[in-house]
């Protein structure tokens, strides 16, 4: 599954927020393979979406907002959406356009009515024709304000799945190891985990599935150091013997394995590399991107601007920034590098360093502390 567009209003830190993850024209010299659905080549979507933003710019919130919308589709519980409403005195709105590689498109719109918190939904599905583009499918939709109904009735028969969100372990509820696999997969997962852990920490000797405990893996070290277990459900922060960055390697291995086995389709990897060196980060990113299959999509948030030098299409790079409107309200905007710089041979990192995208934070308040 791939997300083509989101709109959020009065949701978390987003007001009148819109982000497009499709691209309108076929690229002349694409630097990323098949950024379209194999059977529907005019459905062009951004397979990789790197999101760079300064602190508190909304990167994690964007992931959480998308995640909660998916969860709402799955569990059909109004609270999942209502909890994201920022200002209870205002109505809130969500729009999400998604597409499955098999040829199914859906638009989900959600209204949370103030002050009753009534959740109304409009859900439209379209089967794609061979020549359909995103624009032609949207033309077939009813874009009127009519058709919103009680969410339980509308979503009763909607089945959706296929996402994998990885948030930093400091986020509430995410300090947990995720490595539950069927028995016949454990050897293969332990191989991925071993490769990743050994790369992150060269004192690691091997990783093998535990014979005693299901969903547990034994990490052995060189020099006869004591082995440690890595067990599904344990706290990531409490793994002994591993550095901060290497602890993150456990869940990074999990997402690489998930993409390798095409377990989900939509992947959101949020700041897993804050404690990880640049070389390791780009190795993991390049691996993940290379493993993506038809209709799969990766979102990747980072503070590491060196990523902007990698030879991905310009439209893969997005920047989030806070801007204040004329009434003094703070809004978040997403700026896509491809819309401001069309030439793919230009180094986006250089443009970023020159603040071409106008997203650099002002550091004057800190710098003034250094004035004598």
């Amino acid at each position, binding site marked *: 599954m791939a997300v083509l567009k989101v709109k959020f209003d009065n949701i978390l830190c987003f007001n009148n927020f819109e982000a497009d993850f499709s691209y309108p024209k076929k690229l002349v010299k694409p630097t990323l393979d098949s950024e379209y659905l194999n059977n529907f080549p005019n459905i062009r979507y951004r397979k990789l979406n790197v999101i760079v933003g300064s602190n508190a710019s909304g990167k994690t919130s964007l992931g959480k907002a998308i995640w909660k919308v998916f969860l709402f589709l799955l569990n059909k519980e109004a609270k999942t959406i209502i909890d994201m409403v920022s200002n209870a005195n205002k109505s809130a709105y969500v729009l999400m356009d998604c597409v499955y590689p098999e040829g199914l498109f859906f638009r989900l719109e959600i209204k949370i009515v103030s002050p009753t918190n009534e959740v109304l939904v409009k859900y439209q599905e379209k089967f794609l024709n061979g020549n359909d583009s995103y624009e032609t499918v949207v033309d077939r939709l009813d874009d009127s304000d009519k058709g919103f109904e009680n969410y339980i009735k509308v979503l009763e028969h909607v089945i959706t799945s296929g996402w994998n969100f990885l948030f930093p372990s400091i986020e509430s509820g995410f300090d947990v190891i995720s490595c539950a696999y069927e028995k016949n997969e454990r050897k293969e997962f332990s191989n991925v985990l071993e490769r990743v852990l050994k790369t992150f920490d060269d004192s690691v000797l091997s990783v093998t599935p535990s014979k005693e405990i299901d969903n547990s893996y034994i990490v052995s070290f060189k020099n006869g150091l004591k082995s440690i277990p890595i067990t599904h459900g344990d706290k990531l922060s409490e793994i002994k013997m591993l550095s901060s960055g290497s602890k993150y390697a456990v869940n990074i291995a999990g997402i690489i394995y998930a993409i390798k086995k095409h377990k989900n389709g939509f992947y959101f990897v949020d700041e897993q590399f804050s404690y990880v060196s640049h070389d390791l980060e780009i190795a993991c990113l390049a691996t993940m991107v290379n493993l993506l299959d038809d209709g799969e999509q990766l979102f990747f948030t980072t503070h590491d601007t060196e990523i902007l030098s990698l030879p991905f299409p310009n439209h893969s790079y997005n920047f989030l920034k806070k801007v204040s409107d004329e009434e003094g309200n703070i809004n978040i905007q997403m700026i896509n590098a491809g819309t401001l710089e069309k030439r793919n041979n230009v180094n986006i990192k*250089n443009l970023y*360093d*020159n*603040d071409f995208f106008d997203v650099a934070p002002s*550091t*004057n308040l800190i*710098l003034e502390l*250094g004035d004598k």
Partner: protein
Amino acid sequence: MAGLYHYFVEGECEMVLLKALMHAEDASYGICPGKIEILNVLYQKISPTKARTIKKGTKVVFVFDTDIKKIDLLEDNIETIMNNSSLNEEDIIFVQSVSSLEDELVFACERLVNIGELLGTKGREEFKKKFIKHRDIVPKLKSVGFQINKMWSRIPSEPFSSFAQGFRHLTIKK
């Protein structure tokens, strides 16, 4: 166009114009992109702390008016940058308005007799307000015969004439 640029500009109008030129779709109006910071180098000090954040290989660009003949702080700022960063004097580019931005625009636009004609304004303050809010300034300037090679091309009078006019080093062909 590779390399880093850090512009210190006199005010918001200069910032709006430079940003518009950096993002100009018409290749012949492009200038080197860079960080833009509003700081009047004739009246405000660049702190040593700030100078230390300027990366190696950066070209620092000072954009200022020359209507008031006062250069003591300008000289201090040059010294601060040279003493607290890896830059040399040749890494500093001077872009001097003769004698204000409005005068430069009138000089660079063939069909502009006074600045008020550009946006239909009366007085300097109204022009500034409208200029800052304008979303499409490059096409607007082109409509009155803007020639980028004439912009910031004149040599200012003393005491500014000793600082080389360097805007031509910033114009690029996309």
